């Protein structure tokens, strides 16, 4: 096996033993990118020289016997939504096309402090608005399992890069499923932590009450290691929570016997791909064999989640994106006066989906419609959260499909925004309720596309989710399958 195919924990052991160097590993990753990225299109910016410099530094630390951090010398990719000091950060929008941040976001700074090597910035839907990465202003990303399919989104570039071994692991962000859905589409493991678990400082804002940063990796153990590195309270993000961060690696102990897993009937709907339903039900049977107990639970307000989400997320987005006015940073369109500058800058700088959401959000917040849309949505959000509170009285975690279908074809849903929105139907409620959710591979459909299972935990209980995922992973081989590209 070549180096770029390995996991963080496999490579960590070899780096510490000094069987391999971080420079060799980093070269291997860049060679893989050179050989495959013309077809896949995961990256929008590569940081080869920087990365090799960081790798040399990691090697010096490893040589000095300083191998405490599991990420030391490991090549990691970042979604282009994370501010990276002196490295162009665009959110895949024309309006930030030339933006070079003067500082690192907290998650990035933590990865750097842990000795990780930054490979580059990955493609995404503009401002993280989308479920296929097709809304990027700059590039098309293709699914490594089938180049005619989307990689999912919005963290599609990160998911494709991990699946194609163009990095060892990556970070994404998840507002309504943007880590978990692409993870499912590309056959990798993706984890959205509890809202507040990871700092959002230095992450370009989409919907501030829903956005969360999380790891995307080749297996559960790697997810645990990455989460450990980025989790924790940050005074620079007033919504990050000062809760204790447990040792996630210790939760991978296989002790699931007697644990209760909730199976919500509302997540097995007509219209979903039958192979997805079968794969997830088979996975549930496997977990039962592993010693868990399956209980039926009900989340009766599930059918309202997409409507609630697309009111709240767009309302918050319309407010967050008001800052792109062409004055302080980013693109400014030439115009005759101030007002025209605003209008032309935003008209030329934003793509169609971003405009659509700004329009929808502005409408929902505007005089006369606020109560009917925004306030109503916030009330139904309370009901959705209450459903989970009730369900978690009867179980320790909830198991569902991650998405109703496997990755769809490029172009298949671009003409119909509502159909695109419905691909998030199983992931959205988790963000509305602030819960942690994880997607891991649980099979393939008849056309060889990966299927994802979602495990949902109680707030701040990422450990239980990881424990269950790890037990399933040890009983199956899905996560070890690689696409041929």
């Amino acid at each position, binding site marked *: 096996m070549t180096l770029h195919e390995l996991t963080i924990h496999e490579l960590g052991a070899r780096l510490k033993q000094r069987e391999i160097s971080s420079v060799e590993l980093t070269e291997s990753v860049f060679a893989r990118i050179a050989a495959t990225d013309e077809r896949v299109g995961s990256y929008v910016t590569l940081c080869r020289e920087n990365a090799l410099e960081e790798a040399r530094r990691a090697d010096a630390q490893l040589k000095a016997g300083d191998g405490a951090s599991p990420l030391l010398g490991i090549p990691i990719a970042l979604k282009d939504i994370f501010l990276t000091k002196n490295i162009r950060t665009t959110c895949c929008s024309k309006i930030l096309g*030339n*933006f*070079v941040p*003067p500082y690192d976001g907290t998650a990035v700074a933590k990865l750097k402090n842990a000795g990780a090597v930054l490979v580059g910035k990955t493609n995404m839907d503009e401002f993280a608005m989308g479920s296929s990465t097709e809304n990027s202003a700059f590039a098309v990303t293709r699914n490594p399992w089938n180049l005619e399919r989307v990689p999912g989104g919005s963290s599609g570039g990160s998911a494709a890069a991990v699946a194609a071994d163009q990095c060892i692991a990556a970070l994404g962000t998840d507002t309504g499923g943007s880590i978990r859905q692409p993870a499912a589409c590309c056959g990798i493991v993706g984890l959205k932590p*509890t*809202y*507040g678990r990871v700092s959002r400082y230095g992450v370009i804002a989409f919907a501030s*009450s829903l956005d969360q940063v999380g790891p995307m990796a080749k297996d559960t153990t790697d997810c645990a290691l990455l989460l450990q590195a980025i989790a924790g309270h940050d*005074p620079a993000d*007033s*919504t990050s*929570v000062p809760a204790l961060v447990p040792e996630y690696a210790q939760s991978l102990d296989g002790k699931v016997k007697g644990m209760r897993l909730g199976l919500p009937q509302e997540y097995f709907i007509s219209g979903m791909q039958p192979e997805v339903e079968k794969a997830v039900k088979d996975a549930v049977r496997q977990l039962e064999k592993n010693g868990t107990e399956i209980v039926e639970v009900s989340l009766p*307000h599930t*059918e*309202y989640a997409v*409507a*609630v989400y*697309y*009111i709240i997320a767009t309302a918050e987005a*319309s407010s967050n994106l*008001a800052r792109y*006015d062409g*004055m*302080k*940073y*980013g*693109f*400014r369109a030439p*115009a005759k*006066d*101030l007002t025209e*500058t*605003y*209008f*032309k800058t*935003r*008209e030329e700088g*934003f793509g169609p989906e971003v*405009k*659509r959401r*700004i*329009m*929808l959000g*502005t*409408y929902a917040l505007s005089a006369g419609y606020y109560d009917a*849309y925004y*306030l*109503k949505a*916030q*009330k*139904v*959000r*309370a*009901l959705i*959260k209450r459903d989970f509170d009730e369900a978690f009285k009867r179980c320790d975690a909830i198991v569902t499909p991650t998405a109703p279908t496997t990755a769809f074809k490029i172009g298949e849903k671009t003409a119909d*925004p*509502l159909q695109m929105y419905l691909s998030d139907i199983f992931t959205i409620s988790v963000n509305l*309720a*602030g819960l942690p959710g994880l997607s891991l591979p649980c099979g393939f459909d008849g056309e060889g596309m990966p299927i994802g299972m979602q495990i949902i935990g109680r*707030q701040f209980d990422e450990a239980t989710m990881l424990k269950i995922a790890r037990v399933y992973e040890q009983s199956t081989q899905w996560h070890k399958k690689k696409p041929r590209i």
Partner: protein
Amino acid sequence: MKITREEVKRVALLARLELSAEEEDRLTEQLDKILQYMETLDGLDTAKVEPLAHAVDVVNAFREDRVTNEPQPEALLANAPDGEKTFLKVPKIIE
């Protein structure tokens, strides 16, 4: 119809978006379809439900009123669309 072309124009004005005639047509049709889907919420009785703005219990995060960041005008102005010395240059605001 949930939304008219006139309303689309009004919302675009609020959002500072200059839409082309073709965009106005398309958005009127698409937003109408999306807003019709939102009608699913109308059937739900929420009279006694408190709205939820934040899913996780958060308290005010107070801190000392002290400057913690270094001023770095050059770095910040490097991203400005237009500037001079340590100033941002913007279109004339007062006639």
